[in-house]
């Protein structure tokens, strides 16, 4: 079964573990078996217990009951450092904490050594470089050692983290949504590396929702729902069955009906250039139309959307909104002109910190609309609450109420609240940047439904996931090197062709 043998003893044997947080039971008798050299994917909707299981395995939390055996020995790490020492290393989703901007890649590779004293106290650039090169060579990766860590892309940072894990003699690597911020090519490079590790007998526990990842990598998919094991699929994996098991209801596989008839042109870009040196392009989005722009990371999707929202300016060309020239200098001007942006990365771009004023679901929704909803300036009425209650039921947000903290919601429901913020008031052009980031399948469908339910506005979505684009859009455009280059004829009509210069 496993690539390197030793079938008689599993590497990791998690038996019947449970963990509660207050009255919430995060894990209920969950089990997991991983052989050496096996890639096991862990799937589950938000709140299914995935992260609790990962936290237990990486030594952040302890289970309330149950046993964990690592190579036949009881495994109960008191801290992440102890788990690492025993051979279980977790590579977290956010890779910017792997190194420090201003220090080199070599430093990032040796960071652990600096901390635990394996490195000598006095450093020379030469010895650092030599040891870092050694680590990379052991791992079989190539990275520019002298580059500033800040210049590394997400994929390279991921590789730094993995190389460090290997230097720590990891036998089980836990990867938490490693491809979430990677482009397709970068993800493929990562697959290659992971399959190489598998061939060397290293086991991988892989947490992801992306079917492309799982199809390329997973030997087995283990599915959690409500803290319990609800299914396990061996290769070849039946993904629709797996997804249905994960969300516990049949997947609505039928794509929403694409519309072919649209209203008046809402936004029209003519000969627009995103960067001074990029090629100009045209784009028209009409009322009722949902257009998705897809492309790799850094291709200019976010730049296009944020420029339309008044963050930065086009380097050339002109934009027309509703027949009038449109060149907003700030988000405020864009909003006044009827443009709304659900920006990428809701934590950074939309949410207030926990325990801070404005962290409730209602306040999250009301932030841009305070002036309209509270013309007196005093927050004495229930204006935001009533609208939030309506939004909660309209979008199917799972929340204890309008006053509940947005941080008590799962990722998908947080995203719904952020979308509700811009959907609740009329707008002419709705821009959504990666609206499905960190959103489970169930919530994704609700969001698609919400986006498609508005026929009285134009919608422009940026997503690096082509499947997502197909799921939501009437028309899909490809962006590469800051210019729109290709039209995929999903709802072909003659006038589309004119849009490309």
């Amino acid at each position, binding site marked *: 079964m496993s690539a390197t043998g030793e079938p008689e003893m599993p590497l990791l044997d998690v038996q019947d573990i449970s963990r509660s947080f*207050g009255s919430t039971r995060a894990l209920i008798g969950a089990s997991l078996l991983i052989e050496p050299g096996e890639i096991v994917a862990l799937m589950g909707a938000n709140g299914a217990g995935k992260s609790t299981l990962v936290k237990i395995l990486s030594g952040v939390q302890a289970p309330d009951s149950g046993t964990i055996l690592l190579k036949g020995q009881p495994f109960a790490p008191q801290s992440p450092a102890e788990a690492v020492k025993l051979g279980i290393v977790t590579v977290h989703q956010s890779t910017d904490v792997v190194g420090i901007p201003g220090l080199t890649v070599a430093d990032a590779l040796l960071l652990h050594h600096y901390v635990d004293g394996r490195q000598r106290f006095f450093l020379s650039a030469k010895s650092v470089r030599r040891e870092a090169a050694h680590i990379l060579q052991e791992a079989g990766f190539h990275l520019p050692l002298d580059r500033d860590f800040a210049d590394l892309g997400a994929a390279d940072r991921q590789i730094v983290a993995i190389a460090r894990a290997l230097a720590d003699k990891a036998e089980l690597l836990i990867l938490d949504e490693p491809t979430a911020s990677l482009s397709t090519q970068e993800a493929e490079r990562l697959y290659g590396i992971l399959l190489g590790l598998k061939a060397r007998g290293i086991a991988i526990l892989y947490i992801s929702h992306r079917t492309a990842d799982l199809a390329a990598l997973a030997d087995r998919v283990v599915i959690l729902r409500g803290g319990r094991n609800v299914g396990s699929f061996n290769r070849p994996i039946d993904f629709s069955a797996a997804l249905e098991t994960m969300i516990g209801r049949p997947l609505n596989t039928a794509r929403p009906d694409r519309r072919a008839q649209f209203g008046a042109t809402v936004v029209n870009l003519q000969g627009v250039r995103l960067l001074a040196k990029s090629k100009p392009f045209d784009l028209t989005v009409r009322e009722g139309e949902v257009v998705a722009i897809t492309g790799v990371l850094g291709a200019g999707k976010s730049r296009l959307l944020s420029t339309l929202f008044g963050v930065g300016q086009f380097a050339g060309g002109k934009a027309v909104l509703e027949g009038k020239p449109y060149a907003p200098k*700030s988000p405020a001007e864009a909003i006044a002109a009827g443009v709304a942006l659900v920006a990428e990365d809701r934590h950074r771009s*939309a949410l*207030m910190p926990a325990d801070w004023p404005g962290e409730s679901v209602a*306040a999250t929704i009301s932030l*841009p609309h305070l002036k309209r909803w509270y013309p007196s300036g*005093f927050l004495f009425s229930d204006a935001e609450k009533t609208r939030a209650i309506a939004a909660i039921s309209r979008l199917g947000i799972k929340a204890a109420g309008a006053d509940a903290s947005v941080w008590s919601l799962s990722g998908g429901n947080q995203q719904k609240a952020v979308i509700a913020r811009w959907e609740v008031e009329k707008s002419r052009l709705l821009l959504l940047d990666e609206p499905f980031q960190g959103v489970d399948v169930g919530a994704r469908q609700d969001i698609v439904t919400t986006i498609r339910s508005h026929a009285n506005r134009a919608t422009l979505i940026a997503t690096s996931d082509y499947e997502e684009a197909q799921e939501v859009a009437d028309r899909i455009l490809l962006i590469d090197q800051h210019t729109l280059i290709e039209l995929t004829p999903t709802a072909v009509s003659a006038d589309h062709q004119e849009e490309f210069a």
Partner: protein
Amino acid sequence: MTTVNDISKDTLHQGADSRNTASFVRETVRRGAVFILLAGLIIIFSLAQPAFININNLMSILQAVAVVAIIGAGVTVTLAIGGFDLSAGAVAASSVMASSYAMIVLGLNAYQTVPLVLAFGALVGLANAFLIVKLKVPDLLATLSMMFLLSGLQLIPTAGRSISVGLILPNGSTATGRYDPLFLTIGRSSLFGFIPFPVILLMIVGVILFVLTERTRLGRLLFAVGGNEVATRLAGANTAKIKTFAYVLSGTLAAFGGIIVAARVGRGDVSSGASLLMDSVAASLIGFAVLGLRRPNVLGTITGAVFVGILLNGLTMLNAPYYTQDFVKGFVLVGALALTYGVSRART
């Protein structure tokens, strides 16, 4: 005080959600800790020294903390936007000098002096905002350098002398003006013979600032800037304007505090206001613990100032030496912050 009850109900409601009774009790203790301690202190001091509970003594405590609380309220607003106004104490101190200079050297009356000094405070706030918002100087550095600048500036017009009637100016002439009696009533009069005027001013400032920060659109936006500036800008708010407002408000309130000090002491003392910064910052930070909000809040700041005032007054009545005062303030601050952040750790 209905508004106060509203808050604790809200927050307690969240607490009730947090599962079991042990954590509920812990939450209640954490949220009410400052008030419980305050009540305890008052009882202990009253038993040990019956003169403590005398209404005149209580009023003198409030009078003593009024200035610190008013300046602290301004600092709290800058904390809410995620900044910090370290120049507040220096603004207050130079406002004492400016008030005295305006009346004694320039011969202005109260109606001219008060707006002038408030405008001075607002101008300093504007300068802070310019450094922070336009030039992107980090807030601590900008206001710290402003503090230095002001504490030097206030010495220049009088060549380092304190200002009192009959001041000899650097050019050798004698100043002819005097304190406007009307100006002095700001600091020295009292309502019904026992509520000092500064206490009334504190109550007015407190109510206005509380409503502003907790119950208005602008207040929500102030906290929004402090909580997530990017999100606030993407929501269409003019964050530069909001930050500028906070620093101007803080500067103006600090100048107002300085006016009250000047009206109390009736002279422009170069060393007045030395401890105002530390005291008002301490009040704002102790305020984080009040109701366990773990964030800047005006009610907390005022409570924090009163708490320190009661403690110092009580200890003085029990013959604690004056030089222990800073230690006591520091101890309260450390305790309050440990309580706010330490006890809450168990929540997650």
